[in-house]
């Protein structure tokens, strides 16, 4: 313990401050956000008692939300993923507090969270399905859809900094063109797309990847009203506006400068439709001289079919046909995609529109150039047996 006594020589202030600083560094790296699949549902004990629930009448979404909210058992991951859930709670007059949900569905499994957040293409599949990593609840769970409830906020997009777009307009157009081609192919051939993603170092099993590809296809090809979308990657005015309005309502910022910036944001501050229009108007993908040919895109999360369009575009050579040499950077690490794009360590990013809005409120000057997911993929899932 000799080193402990030598510590006396240091000042208390410097010592503690140094320790705190090292904490900040270790803190942000200790996210522990491993993929959901690592947890295999070991117990299937709950499946026995749920089988009896089929006879009971199901409650309305409103009743389910109110019951769960009053018990304080609504879950969400927080960290900028919570606004739709808060808007939904507010819609039914409930307080907007929620339990912090881990990145697996164990809390849902053991009923400490009775109304849990889930992405249709990821956690919902794990809850319902029986493949490796699944919890095998099948049809014994109910789902509340953010789109149906009118609180949908748009999620995965393609964005870059305004400065980058202005300096490299042809590159941006070519990147959108090739990426959308990738998405188009992926949605036409989800099974093949899932396999391509799996081969690029997937974070989840191939069964789950195939499920995910099917669900992501629905988000890309259906809007918030449930209507079919034929223009891949378009930025729907109404859905974008609803996202911005809800973001202004539920993103709370302690920094008054950022808070007033958030209040003043308009659609024109957060998205630019011109690049997408030019990209989709082109028939041959020739946009003249590209200002930058080596570009990178950081995903919002680990490699999975959620991002299949980019992997397909890479695999099928759509990027190289457009004259681009693209590096796909996995997300889910220490540096969020908004900061990475702002820093210039990557050129493009995939994020949720609400996260882009928060980043722009902080002054990052990011702009969306295409909206890939046309509807919200967030749902609240509950066991029917818990609400009868």
């Amino acid at each position, binding site marked *: 313990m000799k080193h402990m006594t030598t510590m006396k020589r240091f*000042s208390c*202030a410097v010592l*503690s*401050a140094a320790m*705190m600083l090292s*904490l900040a560094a*270790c803190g942000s790296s200790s996210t522990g956000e491993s993929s959901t699949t690592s947890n295999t549902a070991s117990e299937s004990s709950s499946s026995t008692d749920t089988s009896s629930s089929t006879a009971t009448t199901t409650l309305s979404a409103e009743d389910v939300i109110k019951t769960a909210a009053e018990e304080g058992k609504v879950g969400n991951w927080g960290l*900028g993923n919570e606004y739709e859930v808060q808007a939904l709670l507010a819609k039914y007059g409930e307080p907007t507090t929620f339990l912090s949900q881990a990145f697996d569905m164990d809390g849902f499994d053991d009923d400490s969270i009775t109304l849990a957040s889930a992405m249709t293409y990821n956690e919902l599949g794990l809850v319902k399905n029986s493949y490796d990593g699944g919890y095998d609840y099948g049809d014994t769970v109910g789902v509340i859809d953010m789109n149906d409830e009118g609180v949908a906020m748009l999620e995965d997009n393609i964005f870059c900094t305004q400065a980058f777009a202005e300096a490299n307009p042809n590159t941006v157009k070519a990147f959108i063109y090739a990426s959308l081609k990738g998405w188009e192919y992926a949605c036409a051939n989800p099974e093949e797309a899932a396999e391509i993603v799996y081969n690029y170092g997937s974070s989840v099993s191939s069964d789950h990847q195939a499920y995910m590809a099917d669900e992501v296809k629905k988000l890309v090809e259906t809007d918030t009203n449930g209507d079919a979308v034929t223009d891949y990657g378009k930025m729907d005015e109404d859905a974008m506006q609803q996202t911005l309005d809800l973001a202004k309502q539920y993103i709370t910022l302690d*920094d008054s400068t950022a808070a007033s910036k958030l209040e003043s944001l308009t659609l024109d501050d957060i998205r630019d439709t011109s690049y997408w229009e030019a990209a989709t108007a082109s028939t041959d993908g020739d946009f003249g001289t590209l200002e930058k040919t080596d570009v990178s895109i950081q995903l919002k999360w680990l490699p999975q079919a959620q991002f299949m369009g980019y992997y397909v575009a890479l695999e099928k050579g759509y990027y190289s046909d457009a004259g681009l040499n693209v590096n796909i950077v996995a997300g889910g690490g220490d540096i969020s995609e908004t900061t990475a794009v702002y820093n210039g360590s990557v050129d493009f990013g995939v994020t949720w529109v609400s996260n882009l809005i928060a980043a722009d409120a902080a002054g990052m000057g990011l702009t969306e150039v295409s909206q890939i997911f046309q509807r919200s993929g967030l749902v609240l899932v509950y066991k029917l047996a818990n609400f009868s």
Partner: protein
Amino acid sequence: MKRNGSSSRFRQSITTVLYPLFFGILILVLWQTQALHAMLNIDPFVLPLPSRINSIIGESLPKIMTNVWATLIVAVAGLLLGSLFGYLIAIVATVFPKWGAGGLSIVTAFNAIPIVALAPVITNWTKDVSSDANIRSMVAKIIVVLLMCTASMSLNAYRGLTELRPFSQDLLESYAAGKFTIFRKLRLPNSVPYIFTALRVSVPLSVISALVSEYFAEYVIGVGRQIRENIVLGQYPTAWAYITVACLIGIVMYAVLIVCESILLRHRK
């Protein structure tokens, strides 16, 4: 002689207080003038200026204080309980020396588990403690801090209880003093400075453990959680306001410890 003593103490306080203070101010000046940013090649957006951080602390003090209390309660409760637990282990190890050493090794092994691994397990383990998420989260966080703080106390206290001055134990035994008397009159007083050595390690550790355990808690509260939320949202000035507050918690707790130590150990120097 007395004069001499106080002047040397005065000189000592210059080195332990003024030099670091001067160093701190120097860093602040370099930081505010962005010389630090130029030196380390960092963007002022990611490392905001002290004036900006300060204004945010001023603006949202009530909200910050709510989070500070949540963190402070966890850190202090975990520190005290963990230290008490560690001391009890040290006593047990002293009384039963044969398996005491083995027990201490187990404690050290526990201490080596990263908080990142420990916190989710404890959160899971305490799910039935209370129906109030705030309370059961707080219990989970306190247990994490407790486990982190146990090792340094048990190891140091064990040394304090067993490494006695040469022949002192023999002397007491020659007076026919019983085990309990030796413990009360010799071992216990001998361990006091070692308690403070342990606390000097445990105090910063308790704050760090409290902050990190907040990431994994069910109930969303605390300085650590706010740091992470704000960094993810790209709100670096606000994140740094919470980082600053976290530093202050650590410094204040350390200062309180030093004051307690100087009062309790003033006759020993």
